[in-house]
């Protein structure tokens, strides 16, 4: 065991992992996050706590992660490179570990121009690859990036993100290999809609022996509406929504679109359960946390294993 988090234990025992996500509030509204967590508790192995996602200021991800722990839900503390330099990053990693956080997801972060403070200076002192390397060094060598000794090292299960759908496709598996070489223990992907492409990417990862070194959890986000599908297809950078998905949603009765979205997600999850090299699924129900119990039920991933 590298960190002994619940996620690590689930994966190590060979269970198909099922992880969720929660966005901290745009304020100090503790109740709103507790409310979201009620729907996630017991239905997922852990929840990603996003870090000022889309560069909008929110309650800090480590603080919201602590609320998860209070509620009995294991957090995956997300950290982006946009808002902290290497000093603040290492300090927050130590603090997070001290308070019981055992998983981290290391990300570059959306560019600050997308958020509510577009004038802010993007830090990007390290990139996501270098952040992974730093957490690994802190955990495995007990050293800061500078090389100085750490007094009680943080044992963190290290997560990374991958987007198999961004260009150039043929480079993406090599970038995954770099993240594995840097020290990623698990990888969660961008929302998957293009199944042929993810199959090919996983096949490449299998061929390169990467899936023996890292747990891969493809991202699944059910489409709530045709508008959402079209928006994701045309407006979200790096997102790949094939026309088939939109056609399928358009082909059902208006009142059944959300249900069809869940159906598509469940079919994806069913395929991932059988796919060699896939260790679980990361469910990202954007502002749809209350639907997680139903989705988990319909996807056949309940009950979650006790490990």
């Amino acid at each position, binding site marked *: 065991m590298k960190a002994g988090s619940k996620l690590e234990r689930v994966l190590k025992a060979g269970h198909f992992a099922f992880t969720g996500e929660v966005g901290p509030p745009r304020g100090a509204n503790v109740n709103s996050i507790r409310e979201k967590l009620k729907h996630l508790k017991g239905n997922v192995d852990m929840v990603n706590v996003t870090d000022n996602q889309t560069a909008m200021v929110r309650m800090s991800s480590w603080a919201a992660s602590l609320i998860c722990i209070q509620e009995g839900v294991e957090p995956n503390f997300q950290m982006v490179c946009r808002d902290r330099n*290497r000093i603040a990053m290492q300090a927050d990693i130590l603090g997070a570990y001290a308070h019981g956080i055992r998983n981290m997801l290391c990300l570059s972060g*959306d*560019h600050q121009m997308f958020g509510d403070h577009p004038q802010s200076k993007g830090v990007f*002192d390290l*990139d*996501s*690859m270098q952040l992974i390397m730093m957490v690994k060094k802190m955990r495995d060598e007990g050293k800061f990036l500078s090389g100085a000794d750490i007094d009680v090292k943080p044992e963190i299960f290290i997560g990374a993100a991958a987007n198999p759908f*961004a260009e150039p496709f043929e480079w993406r598996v*090599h970038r995954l290999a770099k993240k594995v070489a840097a020290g990623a223990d698990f990888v969660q992907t*961008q929302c998957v809609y293009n199944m042929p492409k993810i199959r090919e990417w996983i096949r490449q990862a299998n061929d390169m022996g990467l899936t023996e070194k890292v747990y891969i959890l493809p991202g699944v986000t059910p489409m709530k509406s045709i508008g959402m599908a079209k928006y994701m297809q045309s407006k979200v950078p790096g997102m790949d929504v094939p026309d088939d998905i939109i056609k399928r949603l358009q082909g059902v009765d208006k009142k059944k679109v959300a249900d069809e979205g869940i159906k598509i997600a469940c079919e994806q999850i069913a395929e991932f359960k059988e796919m060699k090299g896939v260790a679980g699924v990361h469910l990202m129900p954007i502002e749809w946390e209350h639907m997680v119990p139903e989705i988990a039920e319909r996807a056949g991933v309940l009950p979650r294993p006790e490990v």
Partner: protein
Amino acid sequence: MIVAERKPFDEIKNMVSSYKKVLTVGCGTCVAVCLAGGSKEVETLNAELNLAFKKDGIEFGAETLQRQCDMEFLAELDNKVDQYDCLLSMACGAGIQFLAERFPNKPVLPAVNTSFIGVNLDVGWYEEKCRACGQCVLAMTGGVCPVTMCAKSLFNGPCGGTNKTSCEIHTDQPCAWLKIYERLSGQGRLAQIMTVSPPNDWSNQKPRKVIQPGYEERIKAMHS
């Protein structure tokens, strides 16, 4: 070259409005090439200022030096500045500061905003290419600068925000790391970016000096 843009006219107008005799100082090097602060731009700016301050009786003189980043050329103004109560420089930030250092008793005002180190795409059209980071990695990245051309200055790109072939910040902005990938792939040199590139040395965030080899002794003697 260093690329600059003239400041909005109203801002310049406000800066000089409390003086009686202003010397507009152009620079004949980078800012002349990028059409921001050479002799022609000095002429144009003074014509506009003369028109604006006709009633107020402010006088505007004009001088354009070969380079404002060189004391040798600044010395040409030694006998002229006394007639003025303010200097309005159209050089880049380096030139403006050196002019102010040469004439510490005169207010020196900037007439341009220094934009970047860049290249000429066409007449009047320039693109940033270098952030002067002091740790050039262009050998590794196939001649495309990740510090300048990637909006996040990533050393291990491309990030997941690569939007088809463009950067997530704008469809008009090509993804630098896609270009790096394509360049290296075409040259059969992808192996260079297969390994993780370690954290960069950003210790350039302090005033820097360069002494070329062979000049160390001379500079030491000047300071002793």
